[in-house]
């Protein structure tokens, strides 16, 4: 039995793939890229960690007389770094690669094997860049919470969805 990912999961998985590839070719080692829902506090995961998660989506009809839609989504990328320097370097690196957009893959999962098919491009319409400070002294925070950063991307596919 196979599972075909729908657009929201395709966005997340496509971004995860893209970041893994770019981090490797950019010389970064030991950086985990995971999807939202991953327990970053687990002892089996070491920082730095990058969490990718799709949040809300704005859907509008794209044409008069057609049900095709235009989907604009909010993609949230959270960095859990080991230091302030690493946090800043990672976020700047991610901005430099994400501003180019990335390939949209449609993904089919069968017997735990993912089959990815490139199906256009994801456009990045804007990036908000925010250091995460929850107003708690760093010494009172979990060590994985001390150097966090958030990139909020507005993304869309470069085509209408039938």
């Amino acid at each position: 039995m196979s599972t075909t990912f729908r657009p929201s999961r395709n966005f997340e998985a496509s971004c995860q793939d893209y970041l893994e590839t770019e981090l490797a070719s950019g010389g970064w080692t030991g950086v985990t890229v995971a999807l939202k829902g991953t327990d970053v506090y687990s002892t089996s995961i070491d920082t730095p960690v990058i969490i990718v998660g799709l949040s809300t989506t704005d859907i509008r009809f794209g044409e008069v007389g057609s049900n095709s839609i235009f989907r604009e989504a909010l993609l949230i990328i959270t960095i859990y770094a080991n230091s302030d320097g690493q946090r800043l370097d990672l976020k700047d690196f991610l901005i430099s690669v994400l501003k180019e957009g990335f390939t949209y893959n449609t993904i089919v999962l069968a017997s735990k094997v993912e089959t990815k098919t490139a199906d256009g491009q994801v456009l990045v319409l804007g990036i908000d860049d925010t250091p995460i400070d929850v107003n708690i002294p760093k010494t009172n925070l979990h060590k994985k919470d001390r150097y966090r950063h958030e990139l909020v991307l507005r993304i869309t596919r470069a085509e209408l969805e039938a």
Partner: protein
Amino acid sequence: MPLRIEVIKKGKPIEKVITEIKEFPVKAKNDLIKLAQQVLNKMHRNINAERKRDKKVHGLSPKDSKMSLIDAIQIEYFENGWGIGNISYLKANSPHYLAINWGSNHIVGKVLYGHFGENSKPRSSGKRQPFYATEPWYSMIPKKPIVGINYIEKTNFFLVGKIQDIIAKWSKK
């Protein structure tokens, strides 16, 4: 260095385009003011949608006099606009507003008191952690971190979409 100006609105003299830009806030003022209530409602819905427990009742527990996040987030109007959520007020009355937005592990293992009184007991639920009836206020020791719900980012996304709609509406007229 020369300055290059590109006029992309065809068929209109530059003077008219400048006038339209200047008039925009006046024409769109009512729509922009109405937007405040929509944005507040959206932010409250974003919080409620991810709520893990019942909404807290303010002032019942002497151990914790802070407000429910929703009660603390309100519209503030000022001369030329409005804002949602006064940061100083939130820091004083709902200091976990950022931890709820982004998530944090700092509460794990600490004793916390909810805003529950004897007439407003927390509901027990199979999968969630229990509150203990202590002193006689209810307390708990969280085992799991706060999961960030990104209610600020979601609301901002909504706001940007609505402002785009208003710009589109008034640009056509």
